């Protein structure tokens, strides 16, 4: 789960990381008032208005603006609030005093799959996308794998901090920030934390100007206070609906709706749709255990997508029982109209029973995956 910048700033501040003041606002009027109040806190009355959306490249998209005074901040906010960045509507902005910056660097922690450990990364090339730095000048990124049994050790943090700052007081301040960042990482169950940029001001203070946190979805159950930060308006409504129904659903651009059990098979099914000349409309995994209600919910979500021209079921029954899926399909057709053709493939546990249920309800069912995908693609084309 992605957190907004203002939420990430709150978390880091609670862990003792120096963060400049700032407040969120939802309307231009509020932004003006906030800017007025913050004007005295450095920046000579100037403030920055920043769109709060889950998208990178906010600056390039015009979602981050410097204002010389409160009135201009209100004007910027009027434009930013209501704009869309990478398809996501901006509903909230963060207002902060404009900081005079002497240097910008990057500090981040990820869980590295190869070393199977958290890795702290720093770069003196801050304020830009770290992926770009990694691609263009990888020598400017310094890494330290962390043994979770001992945590980030003081000398490791200082070693990296000295790659960013020559002055010892600043290096010590940066090392302290890194250790606090590492503590926060485990405390909230993050899979990524970034301070970008970590800045120094002309008087030598080191502070985190922008923060990004991605929380591991699997941690949300044990961190209800983090789960409560979720912003459903930042997600596609169909995906919110699917999550509430216990389904994994990702909306795509094609016309063949897919309903599959298991993530790997669901991906392979989408790939096969493409292989036979179609385009998948979605990724949908109904999960391992069988439950007719999940199938009903899945069909409700897929049929609500107007670009869907045919629906393909691909079920390999192991723990999932084919008859449960068949019952779900029949129940769904009794509850709402099925305006597009269904192509059903199921094989495995209770396959014969499932085919009997479907045949009685007027459906035909296939047992071969390739044949089913070919038919679903053909039907999507013909529609």
């Amino acid at each position, binding site marked *: 789960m992605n957190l907004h910048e203002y939420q990430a700033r709150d978390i880091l501040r609670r862990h003792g990381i120096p963060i400049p003041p700032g407040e969120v606002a939802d309307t231009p009027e509020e932004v003006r008032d906030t800017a007025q109040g913050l004007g005295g806190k450095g920046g000579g009355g100037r403030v920055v208005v920043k769109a709060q959306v889950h998208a990178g490249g906010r600056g390039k998209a015009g979602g981050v603006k410097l204002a010389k005074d409160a009135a201009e901040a209100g004007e910027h906010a009027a434009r930013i609030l209501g704009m869309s960045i990478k398809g996501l509507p901006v509903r909230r902005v963060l207002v902060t005093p404009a900081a005079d910056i002497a240097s910008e660097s990057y500090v981040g922690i990820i*869980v590295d799959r190869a070393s199977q450990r958290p890795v702290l990364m720093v770069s003196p090339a801050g304020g830009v996308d770290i*992926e770009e730095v990694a691609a263009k000048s990888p020598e400017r990124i310094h890494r330290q794998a962390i043994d979770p049994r001992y945590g980030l050790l003081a000398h490791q943090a200082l070693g990296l901090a000295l790659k960013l700052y020559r002055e010892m007081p600043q290096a010590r301040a940066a090392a302290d920030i890194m250790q606090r960042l590492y503590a926060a990482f485990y405390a909230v169950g993050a899979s990524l934390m970034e301070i970008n940029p970590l800045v120094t001001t002309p008087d030598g203070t080191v502070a985190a100007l922008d923060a990004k946190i991605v929380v591991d979805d699997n941690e949300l*159950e*044990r961190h209800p206070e983090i789960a409560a930060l979720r912003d459903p308006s930042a997600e596609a409504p169909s995906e919110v609906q699917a999550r509430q129904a216990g389904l994994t659903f990702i909306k795509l651009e094609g016309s063949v709706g897919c309903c599959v059990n298991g993530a*790997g098979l669901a*991906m392979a099914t989408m*790939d096969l749709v*493409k292989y036979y000349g179609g385009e998948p409309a979605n990724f949908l995994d109904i999960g391992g255990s069988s439950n007719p209600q999940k199938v009903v919910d899945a069909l409700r979500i897929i049929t609500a997508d107007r670009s869907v021209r045919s629906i393909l079921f691909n079920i390999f029954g192991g723990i999932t029982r084919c008859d449960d899926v068949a019952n779900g399909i029949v129940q769904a057709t009794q509850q709402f109209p099925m305006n597009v053709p269904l192509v059903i493939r199921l094989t495995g546990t209770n396959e014969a029973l499932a085919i009997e249920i479907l045949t009685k309800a007027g459906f035909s069912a296939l047992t071969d*995956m390739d044949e089913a995908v070919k038919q679903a693609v053909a039907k999507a084309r013909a529609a």
Partner: protein
Amino acid sequence: MSIFVDEQTRLLVQGITGRDGSFHTRQMIGYGTKVVAGVTPGKGGQVFDGVVPVFDTVADAVRETRANTSVIYVPAAVAASAIFEAADAGIGLIVCITEGIPVLDVTRVLPFLHERGARLIGPNCPGLISPSKSKVGIIPGNICQPGRIGVVSRSGTLTYEIVHQLSTHGMGQSTCIGIGGDPLIGTNFIHCLSAFHADADTDAVVMIGEIGGTDEQQAAEFVQTTMTKPVVGFIAGQTAPPGRRMGHAGAIISGSSGTAAEKMAAFARAGIAVMKRPADVVPLLKERM
């Protein structure tokens, strides 16, 4: 022979009295797996289905039954604790079926296992099966047949699909193993490939990968430099959009890395026969063997 599990496997089930644990324990016993013990704290002294003694702790179970392998069906919040407990009791092979374990829990588990020399398969995996010998986990026994093909995969039902194709064409399996769909897992492709490489009863290997991470690319290098047995590979997620988690926590293209195209190219460079679709597995194996 086979890899990791066989007739010598003496299995302990952690979470044996739970909904999933009890269902799959019956399936494993039905398949012929030697299930020697179960563990559910608070239910020590009971006997599951009249045949499997239940203990409060893994240490008790190991002392009384000489269990050497554990399979875990407990909820995600306590799964890391279950792995720690199994390793501390001296279990050498731990198979964790549970999905949804926080990745940071796994960062703490792995060094603990390493120090004790224990192998973890999973988490978030279907387990493994050496057909007609032992089944540990949830892979349906009826789709497998004994034979000489090794199968290793990051997926569950996609593996069943491909194993089913093998079995219906008379190509039995030495061992089928699902290594799990999470970003951090205990046993990776290379571990399995080198075990298959050393196994006298495996003639060829089917490797089923997916988007996310670089495990397949490293495995391809291993195949190129070390393996002499033919390998056939598949990558799921050719149509997956970047930045989205495709069901499995580990199935995500980060930036431009971890794509299916990049993995398939690595396979091809290493001399692995690349399947374009699951149905290619049998013809490609026949061509290479």
